[in-house]
């Protein structure tokens, strides 16, 4: 029942929110709904019998597709991440003026429902459904509430990802015809009888879709634009959760289904990922635009996660699990701050900032902490994840690990550069009148900071939570 609740709560409240006329009530109901979802997600993590974590009814008997939702450790974790993120996002923008707020929050909740569905689906067709459904609300959100170039940029993003998912769809159909009973259930898909050529071809069809979503170099160019032009709340959803869709999908739908092909192409994919890590880091280093900087930094981080997934090392898998959660928390925190800064100063160019630490000490502290989490400093949550991933990568191939390791240095370079340009140095006319971060955003960030520290000191609960997924992956390989 829990999986259904996770989807239905945001879905229904989202639809209801559209009907509201005042911004205030829409905000409240959205926040309430998000909290309710969080509670359910938390419930799923804590103490539930296995039967409550599965939902299965007939849906399209003709096609062999059943509406199956299932939660394993990774699903729980990502649902929890989604559950945590939305209240934080809503809190962060609670005091902001949003034009036609009911629609905005309605779309946001719908996107949450879609994301939840992606993380829960255990049937390929259902998965594809939610995969697209998570995209549509974002399209509208970005196109209506985004920045100047929003329409073109969002359109590019949409077509890009849609293209990928269509390729995946053909792969899904093809695969299901070769699976026993022409079913879409994950168990059946793993047993599909395929020749080697078929397997390898299908592998790429799936992977390209996921790679676009993550995104992996060189399929990433939609991302900086989209992050920059989207309203920041949506960017948070996109970078905090949506990119995890790609990683999640690799774990759920790619590695178990095509273990041989994954092993076969792991070198190629890791090569691209590692190139992407360095490439994005270098670009971030010279980036003058705060939002684009964070976007490229995100590409670098995701690249590492993707590389780790193909190392077939337990440690790397475990690291990815932790890092998916951690990266979500960190990047949402960064965006909340970036949004606060942009709202304050009206610019997102680093060259026009400086000295904010004098005017906004709280913001400064939070930005520093989030920035340090971004460089994976020990005792912040991403250290553990990156440590494990690098460890796995090292075991796979120490040269790649060494090359990818350069990003540790580059991450420090660009993050500190950002912190310095924003916070330090003398004041200038733009920052002269700045004030500190709004209270609601402060609270949201406070929660995130606590998560960052707790995750960095005691990540074991996350490890235990996702252990079953990792074990399953290891046995598959």
């Amino acid at each position, binding site marked *: 029942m829990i999986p259904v609740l996770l989807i239905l709560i945001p879905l229904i409240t989202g639809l209801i929110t559209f009907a509201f006329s005042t911004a205030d009530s829409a905000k409240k109901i959205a926040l309430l709904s998000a909290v309710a979802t969080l509670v359910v997600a938390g419930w799923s993590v804590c103490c539930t019998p296995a039967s409550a974590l599965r939902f299965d009814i007939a849906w399209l008997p003709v096609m062999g597709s059943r509406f199956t939702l299932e939660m394993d450790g990774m699903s729980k974790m990502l649902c929890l991440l989604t559950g945590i993120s939305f209240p934080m996002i809503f809190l962060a923008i609670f005091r902001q003026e949003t034009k036609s707020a009911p629609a905005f929050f309605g779309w946001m909740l719908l996107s949450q429902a879609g994301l939840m569905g992606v993380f829960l689906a255990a049937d390929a067709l259902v998965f594809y459904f939610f995969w697209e459904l998570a995209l549509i609300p974002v399209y509208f959100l970005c*196109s209506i509430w985004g920045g100047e170039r929003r329409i073109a940029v969002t359109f590019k993003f949409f077509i890009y990802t849609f293209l990928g998912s269509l390729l995946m769809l053909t792969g899904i159909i093809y695969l299901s*015809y070769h699976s026993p009973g022409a079913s879409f259930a994950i168990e059946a898909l793993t047993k599909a009888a395929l020749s080697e050529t078929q397997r390898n071809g299908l592998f790429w*069809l799936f992977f390209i879709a996921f790679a676009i979503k993550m995104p992996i170099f060189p399929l990433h160019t939609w991302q900086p634009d989209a992050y920059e032009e989207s309203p920041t709340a949506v960017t948070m959803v996109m970078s905090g959760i949506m990119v995890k869709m790609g990683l999640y999908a690799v774990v759920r739908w790619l590695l178990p289904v095509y273990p041989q092909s994954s092993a076969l192409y792991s070198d190629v994919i890791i090569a691209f990922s590692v190139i992407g890590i360095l490439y994005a880091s270098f670009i971030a280093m010279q980036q003058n635009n705060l939002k684009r900087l964070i976007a490229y930094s995100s590409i670098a981080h995701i690249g590492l996660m993707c590389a780790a997934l193909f190392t077939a090392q337990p440690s790397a898998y475990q690291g990815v699990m932790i890092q998916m959660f951690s990266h979500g928390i960190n990047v949402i925190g960064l965006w909340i701050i970036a949004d606060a800064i942009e709202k304050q100063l009206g610019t997102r160019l680093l060259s026009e900032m400086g000295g904010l630490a004098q005017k906004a000490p709280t913001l400064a502290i939070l930005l520093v902490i989030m920035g340090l989490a971004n460089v994976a400093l020990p005792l912040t949550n991403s250290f553990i994840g990156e440590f494990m991933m690098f460890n796995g990568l090292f075991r796979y191939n120490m040269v790649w690990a060494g090359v990818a390791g350069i990003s540790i240095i580059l991450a420090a370079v660009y993050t500190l550069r950002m912190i310095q340009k924003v916070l330090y140095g003398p004041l200038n006319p733009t920052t002269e009148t700045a004030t500190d971060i709004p209270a609601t955003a402060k609270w949201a960030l406070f929660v995130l900071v606590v998560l960052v520290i707790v995750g960095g000191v005691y990540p074991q609960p996350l490890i235990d939570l996702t252990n079953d997924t990792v074990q399953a992956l290891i046995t598959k390989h």
Partner: protein
Amino acid sequence: MNAIIFSALWGVVMMFSGIVTQNKKTITGLSVLGLVLLLFINCLHAYGIWVIKLDTLGALHFDSIGLFFNAIAIFATLLYVVLSGKDIENTGVHAAEYYALLFFVLTGVSILTAFNGLLMLFLGIEIMTIPLYILTGADKRNLKSNEASLKYFLMGSFSTGIMLMGIALIYGATGKFGIAGGISLAPSTGLAVRPSFLEVGGMILLFVSMCFKVSAAPFHFWTPDVYDGAPAVFTSFMATIVKSAGFFAFIKLFDAHTAVLGDSWNILVPFVILITLLIGNITAVFQQSVKRMLAYSSIAQAGFMLFALYGNNDLSKEGILLYAFSYSLATIGIFAVLIKLKDYSLDGFNGLATEYPLLAFSTAICLLSLAGIPLTGGFFAKYYMLSAAIKAGGIFWLVIVAVLLAAVSVYYYFRVIQAMYFKSGAPSFNQPITKAFQFTLFGVAVMIILLGLFPNLLLNFFYF
């Protein structure tokens, strides 16, 4: 048989209603009534109840899928008349006659769903097409309408000539006008006997003419011009019901004939699909007029429907029903809005969402359905087509090309959504938008979504 006779009779009734009353509302009401009755007795037929029982001596063969398709076509027409009845009245002065012609077209459609021989195919197509020549030219003072009508007529007749030559050659080879196909097994060896060359030639010609009817490239050239030139309200009808019927006939015709063409079938159809998809999708990208864009998009959609022809399996039959229905719903919905607009270009849609949110929402759903986004009927339609092709095997590369081009199609469909939602402007209408119209359109949108969630709802009808 019920539907054929009744629609012909009601066509006559409509013809004469113009004499009895000048009130166009009454005429529209009468035709709605006729359509409801038609739908009803068509369904009766499905349950085995005959209004008039005639022995057709093998000329017609009614099966459940045909009746079901017929029901879909009639239902779509009903929706079409309910949504766009006002606009039919406002085109020219011959409302009653137009309705009569619509009913005659439906007669043709009904024949095409049940034909059991080349003669009935020929007659059905002609009965369906000749009224369309007239409807295309209905806006007599409009040069574009004239031009479209003449183009359609000339090219249509030409393709009729091709079709007849094909039929003649088949007749020469087989001595029959049946559709069972001329392939046979040699009694001694058990191997398939290579069909007569004449029959093959005839099949190719028949294939060409059917491609023409469903506007598959490279025989699609009439489509953009005719759809663009014809009064929008009739374009809507032509692009949906008539086209779907053409497809139905096409698939039914070649159901048993694919073997005749042998390997070349596996080249010809993919070739046609490829060109159709390419031309339809790519050309639509540049169009500024939504009407013309929809014309090209209908070519693209035809490309997808052709997968059913290639697949030629159970999936393709179910799929073509689903496709016909969802495609018709969506296209009728968009055209219903388009007709009411003064400006058919993309800019004409600017700012629709702020003034008429419900209308814009429904239109957006229709567009999403055409683009094949999940949660809409269009998704499952496309899904079935791809499945049919993949199941049939051999052209996976084409399926990939098709989805790449489907991504292109998102580009032009979404430009309309962008105009409605993200651009500001004040759309001007030919006639006021009534609440009833908005809610009907919303109903269409809801139906599309339902179809996108539970395609079984539709397909279950087929199975019982």
